[in-house]
């Protein structure tokens, strides 16, 4: 538990510096790093969505094969077919951003349903749901992934659905543990007794006020995991397929030329993966430290 005791910051205007003081310098740095990376990511997504890329990412330019960064307008260099790495990097965001969000939504949504059902429905529903969770837990993630890849085409959305489903149990367990703690207190009873409606109790008094730390940090964590999975599978050739760029298959195609001394076309996407992953994992870690209050 963090030792920082955050006074109420919602009602009183506080300068940026004061905020930093409260959160702690380290946490502020982590938070700003994560938010900058994530904002850049979202910005990049829209740039590629509206096709404002500096080069056509599929455009072969055989004069500039494997050129290092800053060669004639290719800011980050080119790959083995002379395609612009920077443009492909930006287009590559598309490969995982929305699918990962789908994974997060699946995990969080079902996690919430399972956890909330444990308070408000009767034992049989709860038992069935936890049985489903246990069977998901019993299945190794990778086996499940390869199963899905073998049955369906290597479609990124199927993969993300599997990732989402495989993360349901951990979200559900965390939430259930938290809600069990809350049930020990009489405040749920007290809220019912004071006539607050059930959906307001569930949404506001349980999920939003008491579980949002778990929800936020888990979302960021699952997001990170989904991105990592996408990159790994694409690297192995099971995810997004060439010529559609994804950071994983960019690393893969570049790595063939690594030994020749052409570092850039594989290290740049690898670096990008690392930055984004660390942003999400740090966010997950910092959110729980900053929002967790003593109570």
């Amino acid at each position: 538990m963090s030792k920082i005791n955050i006074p109420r910051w919602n009602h009183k205007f506080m300068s940026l510096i004061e905020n930093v003081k409260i959160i702690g310098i380290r946490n502020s740095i982590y938070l700003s790093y994560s938010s900058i990376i994530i904002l850049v990511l979202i910005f990049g997504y829209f740039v590629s969505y509206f096709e404002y890329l500096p080069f056509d990412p599929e455009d072969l330019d055989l004069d500039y094969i494997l050129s290092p960064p800053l060669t004639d307008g290719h800011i980050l260099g080119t790959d083995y077919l002379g395609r612009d790495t920077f443009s492909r990097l930006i287009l590559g965001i598309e490969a995982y951003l929305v699918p990962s969000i789908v994974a997060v939504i699946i995990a969080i949504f079902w996690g919430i349903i399972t956890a909330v059902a444990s308070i408000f429905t009767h034992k049989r529903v709860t038992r069935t749901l936890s049985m489903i969770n246990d069977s998901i837990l019993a299945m190794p993630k990778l086996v499940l992934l390869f199963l899905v890849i073998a049955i369906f085409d290597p479609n990124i959305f199927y993969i993300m659905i599997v990732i989402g489903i495989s993360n349901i149990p951990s979200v559900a367990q965390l939430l259930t543990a938290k809600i069990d703690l809350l049930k020990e207190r009489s405040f749920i009873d007290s809220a019912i007794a004071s006539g607050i409606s059930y959906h307001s109790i569930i949404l506001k008094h349980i999920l939003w006020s008491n579980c949002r730390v778990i929800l936020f940090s888990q979302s960021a964590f699952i997001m990170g995991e989904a991105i990592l999975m996408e990159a790994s599978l694409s690297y192995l050739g099971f995810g997004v397929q060439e010529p559609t760029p994804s950071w994983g298959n960019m690393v893969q195609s570049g790595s063939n030329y690594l030994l020749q001394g052409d570092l850039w076309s594989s290290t740049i996407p690898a670096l990008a993966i690392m930055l984004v992953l660390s942003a999400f994992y740090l966010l997950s870690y910092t959110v729980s430290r900053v929002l967790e209050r003593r109570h």
Partner: protein
Amino acid sequence: MNEVPLLKVSNLSVNFYNSENIDVVSALSDISFSLAQKQCLGIIGESGSGKSVTLLSLLGLMNTAPGITSGTIEFSRDDTTINLLENLDNYPLHDIGSISSIVQRQFNRRKEQLNKNFQAIRGKQISIIFQNPKLAFNPYYSIGHQICEMIQLHTDINSEEKVKAKALSWLERVGMDDPEARFYNNPYGLSGGLCQRAMIAMALASEPSLLIADEPTTGLDTILQRNILNLLHDLQQELSLSMIIVSHDLKVIQTLCKDVLVYHSGMIIEKGTTKQVLASSENKHPYTRQLIQCELNSVCLAGDILIQNVDNGGCPYYYSCDEITSRISKTCAQSNPSLHNIDDDHAIRCWKYHDI
């Protein structure tokens, strides 16, 4: 005075499954009492005798099967009387004694029905102060926020500033040391006494006609206890509230309440006006007498009240009773006495006062 009582509970019975979920234990049996408008009713009795369960039943907060199994709770407001346990008979709990899915399903329907019946009075008409105020607040919101929520939910005030002003005035009224600052305090940042005051403010913010307080002074020092009780007393007079107070402190009951119920093992063993029950007159249930003696002498010469055998059909107080005479000893061991009126409004559940 033939006024309709605000609250009339008749034959209320509540059951729970025991820890192994196979047997049913009775938490309350055959509870009947009524509470007149603007009156205060006290409940005393030993720990585990079902006082809290009674209060929770009045708000339909039974979370485990079988819960309320019989009885009526009639609540009157503005010349209309509603039975809060209406339509529960439509979902009978068959085969009590073994937990089966039928019972569970019926219980869920009953719970829905209960919620439907009680939704109109929860908060609006009846507010409750829980045994431990710190646990009864949502730990993440400031107390001001939670009081405002009550005001918005249950009164006509809707402009945000007015709601806040009202909440502040409540905090002021219950004697918060610094309402403006405390408004933003989280519950864990308050001392026990302040938290209890905040709880009272929250309970009253919805302007109910009945306030239920479950041991409102437990865990507070003596001076604070007095303060809180004085506050409750003043508020009751001022807002013409009805109140039900559970307390272990007989003096409290004596000063605040007109009527009193004495509980023992899920039953009312004595009821009457405070004067009749707590005065040192002769006619009294042995348990009440013991209670009063303990209070006066602070040295308790009671028998071992841990040994209880309710199932043998005898008087539940049989094993700790020191007033069994040879005339009644056999009956005491064999059957449970019924409440016997020995005076107007004064009833005692003891064979001593029956003609046998």
